[in-house]
């Protein structure tokens, strides 16, 4: 068929690019032949060739003409040619090109990295089927969202609330057990979960089964489900592990299943154990130990499920006014709940990278303005020589496009690296495994940012060229000059950069000060030379309180004899290191009445000598003693602030107080001593009320050691391990850390947010300094002639230098002034992350301003020196 062949050829022709080599060769052939003809006519060889070329016309034009025959091929060809020209032109200015690539790359990379972090944390971390139906259930007190729900309340919600297909509970804090019966006694993370936990999340065990309903009732057989990682690590992936028996805190427990690899919910778990209704941590309505996760029934909205839950809350309030007055349950979509926890740091860092991008764009725009003015006469000349404006604009656009493309590549590189760093550094609580890596979202964001940048610094100059009047440009002088508008634009860009950078520096400064304030908080004890560790007795083999007492008394006594050890303290929860366990305390006559003397305080069980070992001062009365046994009257010590509040008259010693221990009736004890305040949980929370009980009277199975000593940490650790093993080979010594490490860890989250932010601020500062330097250097180079005249007229070198620096500092000053209102807003936004310093801290503001001025001065110094060393004679000769 003739016409189909014809069509096919035409289609081919439409896209086929004329072979450039072939075209070149044909044209060369033509010119040679013309030249030979001219030679034959008797012209000189040179003249013959010149005329041949002239007759032919511009080679490029002809090639263009040939290409024009094919529309699509023409566009592609133009692009290729423009790219080649653009690439060459960029290579001719390596400093400019590199500066743009790096600056934009950093700006893009930072933002893409943060998006990547969000992506991982919020979107890729819900590895459960239909995650949009999952909700997190948290307790509310008078409408305020708290955190953990009590076990009995959970069981009531699970049984009575409509709209939820399933509801489950998990202990969201570290719960550990000692596993024995394997090679080495091992302390593992073993959260308690309700029996429907795996089913609620929609994940089935890889082998074996989950928990049966009977295993969640009192007296149910002790069972456990292992995590894949733990199964691999401690059981070598033994397929026969399901059905085998391991000992958890000396209780023989059957392994019933192994979860698939990567399964995780909120806490890292080595194994999961079922909560048994009404026992242990789920024993009482005032023990709030569980986070709930629910799955909405298909087609049920969050609001109607919340309605169902509220009904139950109302009924519980009526039935149990003592414990449930004002208490409720709030359902939040899981994704949203996750975002809450990291909102502040992520928002802060996101804002910071955006600001860095702004600075980067301003910097690049400044560079482009400088370069644009330098190229203006070049462009004007080309334009006069007949290059179309459209063509010139396209050329500029192509160059910018190449830069944007390069910057994207640099940006992606920076982003993947930075994303990993941030994920490691930031205190992110996520559900699934954290896997860094380039995602489609990140790639898309890169493309979008690159396009945005391209629009900002590529399209505008191109438009300017398209509109410009070449004749005017040429008439305005032989030297490349920037109009007043160019300089003003560039100065504006520098001012903007300084302003934005100042905000970052100020906010970083505020966080930095908070951090140091936090570090200088007096924890209430002497942390130097203090080693801490944990010893947990398996409840199965140490059921008797006197056995536990005997064990810990011996441990304390013998540890004190280890070489280099000067004192040993034993407590169930160490200050700073282990918060939690705060309960109500009140005078007995006010108990349950919510009187003015009711307080909430951290309760701690100690062995004699704890306060001395920790360096906590005993202010009045006595320490607990060996005679404070279960047979003797119960005793307690108060922290100074608690004693002050409970007995403002200062007569706390000798009083009897009631303490909530989860039973119907409170525990009552006599105050026998008052000790100094300590920071019970986090440094940021500061000192808190505490009360101490005698281990001889209240004896939990897990205790912490505080060992004060002078010799090396390794020596004492080994000594302790040997000692514990000699007392009971089935008990591991865990969590060995110096108190100073504990203090550092407690502020590590802040340190990492601060570190990332400081890095961003540093980058912005560097960019702004480079931008300022560029402007001043350019400013000086443009005024060489003028400065030369001035110096010839008697201006001193130092005077010239000062004028340059002054000019730079005026811009910085303007930027700083602009920064003040911005920082006030920013300071308010980060208020929640500050400690011991206000959002308007004048020292930080002043310090940041001085610092910026110093950096700016440095950035101006080189151009100023250059100005000062201008030789008037040379300046004139250059004309």
């Amino acid at each position, binding site marked *: 068929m003739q016409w189909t062949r014809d069509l096919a050829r035409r289609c081919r022709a439409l896209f086929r690019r004329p072979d450039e080599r072939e075209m070149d060769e044909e044209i060369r*052939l033509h010119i040679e032949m013309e030249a030979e003809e001219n030679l034959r006519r008797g012209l000189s060889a040179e003249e013959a060739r010149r005329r041949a070329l002239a007759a032919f016309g511009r080679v490029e034009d*002809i090639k263009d*003409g*040939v290409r*024009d025959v094919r529309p699509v091929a023409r566009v592609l060809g133009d692009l290729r040619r423009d790219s080649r020209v653009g690439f060459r032109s960029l290579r001719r200015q390596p400093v400019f090109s590199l500066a743009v690539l790096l600056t934009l790359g950093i700006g893009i990379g930072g933002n893409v990295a943060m998006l990547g972090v969000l992506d991982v944390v919020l979107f890729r971390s819900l590895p459960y089927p239909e995650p949009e139906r999952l909700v997190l259930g948290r307790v509310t007190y008078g409408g305020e969202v708290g955190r953990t729900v009590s076990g009995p309340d959970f069981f009531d919600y699970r049984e009575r609330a409509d709209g939820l297909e399933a509801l489950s509970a998990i202990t969201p804090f570290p719960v550990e057990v000692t596993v024995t019966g394997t090679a080495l006694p091992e302390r593992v993370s073993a959260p308690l979960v309700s029996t429907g936990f795996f089913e609620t999340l929609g994940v089935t065990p890889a082998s074996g089964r989950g928990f049966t309903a009977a295993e969640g009732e009192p007296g149910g057989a002790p069972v456990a489900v292992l995590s894949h990682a733990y199964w691999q690590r401690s059981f070598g992936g033994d397929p026969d592990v399901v059905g085998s028996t391991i000992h958890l805190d000396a209780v023989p427990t059957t392994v019933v299943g192994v979860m698939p690899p990567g399964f995780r919910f909120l806490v890292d778990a080595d194994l999961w154990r079922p909560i048994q209704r009404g026992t242990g941590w789920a024993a009482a309505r005032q023990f709030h130990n569980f986070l709930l996760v629910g799955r909405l029934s298909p087609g049920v909205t969050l609001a109607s499920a919340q309605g169902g839950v509220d009904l139950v809350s109302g009924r519980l309030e009526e039935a149990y006014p003592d414990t449930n007055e004002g208490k409720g349950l709030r359902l939040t979509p899981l994704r949203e709940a996750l975002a809450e926890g990291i909102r502040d740091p992520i928002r802060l860092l996101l804002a910071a990278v955006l600001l860095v991008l702004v600075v980067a764009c301003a910097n690049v725009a400044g560079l482009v303005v400088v370069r644009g003015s330098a190229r203006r006469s070049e462009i004007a000349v080309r334009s006069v020589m007949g290059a179309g404006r459209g063509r010139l604009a396209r050329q500029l656009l192509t160059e910018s496009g190449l830069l944007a493309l390069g910057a994207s590549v640099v940006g992606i590189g920076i982003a993947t690296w930075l994303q990993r760093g941030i994920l490691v550094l930031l205190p992110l609580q996520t559900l699934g495994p954290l896997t860094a890596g380039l995602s489609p979202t990140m790639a898309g964001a890169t493309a979008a940012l690159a396009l945005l940048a391209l629009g900002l610094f590529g399209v505008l100059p191109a438009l300017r060229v398209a509109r410009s009047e070449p004749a005017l440009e040429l008439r305005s002088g032989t030297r490349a000059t920037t109009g007043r508008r160019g300089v003003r634009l560039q100065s504006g860009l520098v001012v903007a950069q300084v302003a934005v950078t100042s905000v970052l520096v100020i906010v970083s400064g505020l966080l930095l000060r908070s951090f140091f304030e936090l570090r200088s908080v007096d924890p209430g004890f002497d942390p130097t030379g203090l080693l801490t560790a944990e010893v947990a007795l398996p409840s199965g083999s140490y059921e008797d309180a006197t056995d536990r007492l005997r064990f810990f008394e011996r441990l304390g006594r013998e540890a004190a004899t280890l070489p280099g050890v000067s004192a040993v303290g034993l407590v169930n929860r160490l200050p700073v290191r282990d918060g939690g366990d705060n309960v109500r305390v009140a005078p007995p006559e006010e108990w349950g009445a919510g009187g003015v003397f009711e307080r909430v305080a951290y309760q701690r069980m100690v062995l004699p000598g704890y306060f001395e070992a920790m360096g906590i001062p005993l202010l009045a009365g006595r320490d607990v003693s060996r005679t404070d046994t279960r047979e003797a009257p119960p005793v307690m010590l108060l922290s100074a602030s608690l004693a002050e509040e409970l007995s403002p008259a200062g007569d706390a010693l000798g009083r009897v107080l009631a303490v909530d221990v989860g039973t119907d009736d409170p525990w009552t004890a006599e105050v026998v001593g008052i000790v100094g305040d300590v920071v019970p949980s986090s440094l940021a929370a500061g000192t808190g009320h505490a009360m101490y009980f005698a281990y001889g009277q209240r004896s939990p199975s897990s205790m912490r050691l505080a060992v004060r000593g002078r010799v090396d940490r390794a020596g004492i650790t080994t000594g302790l391990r040997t000692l514990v093993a000699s007392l009971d080979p089935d008990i591991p010594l865990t969590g060995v850390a110096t108190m100073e490490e504990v203090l550092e860890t407690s502020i590590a989250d802040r340190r990492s947010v601060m570190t990332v932010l400081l890095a961003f601020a540093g980058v912005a500062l560097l960019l702004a300094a480079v931008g300022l330097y560029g402007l001043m250097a350019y400013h000086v180079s443009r005024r060489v002639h003028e400065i030369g005249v001035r110096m010839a007229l008697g201006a001193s070198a130092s005077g010239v230098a000062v004028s340059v620096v002054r000019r730079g500092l005026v811009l910085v000053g303007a930027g700083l002034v602009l920064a003040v209102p911005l920082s006030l807003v920013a300071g308010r936004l980060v208020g929640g992350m500050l400690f011991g310093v206000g959002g308007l801290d004048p020292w930080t503001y002043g310090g940041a301003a001085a610092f910026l001025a110093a950096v700016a001065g440095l950035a101006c110094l080189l151009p100023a020196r250059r100005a000062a060393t201008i030789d008037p004679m040379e300046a004139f000769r250059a004309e």
Partner: protein
Amino acid sequence: MSRSDLLQGSLDLLILRVLELEPLHGWAVSKRIRLLSKDVLDVNQGSLYPALYRLRDRGLIESEWQTSDEGRRIKVYHLTPRGRKALVRERRSWRRFSGAVEAILQAG
């Protein structure tokens, strides 16, 4: 007639015509047109090569690389059967067109 007056369609006709006489390379095509028109028509190379590529894309001419008598690689264009038919058509329409123009010029 200056080259800018050369009508677009007529250049195609001229190329097809000289290639009908014998296969030629690009330079020779322009040479031959000038020669045959007794130096009146001077084809601008800027039009010639685009026209050659256009005609080739339309399948009216074809090109191949040959070695000339002096041992030089040259690209020679020749008419295809379709080109031959097109030439007949073009020639007829050109004759009608120029005849019409002539008739108007001689009228009165």
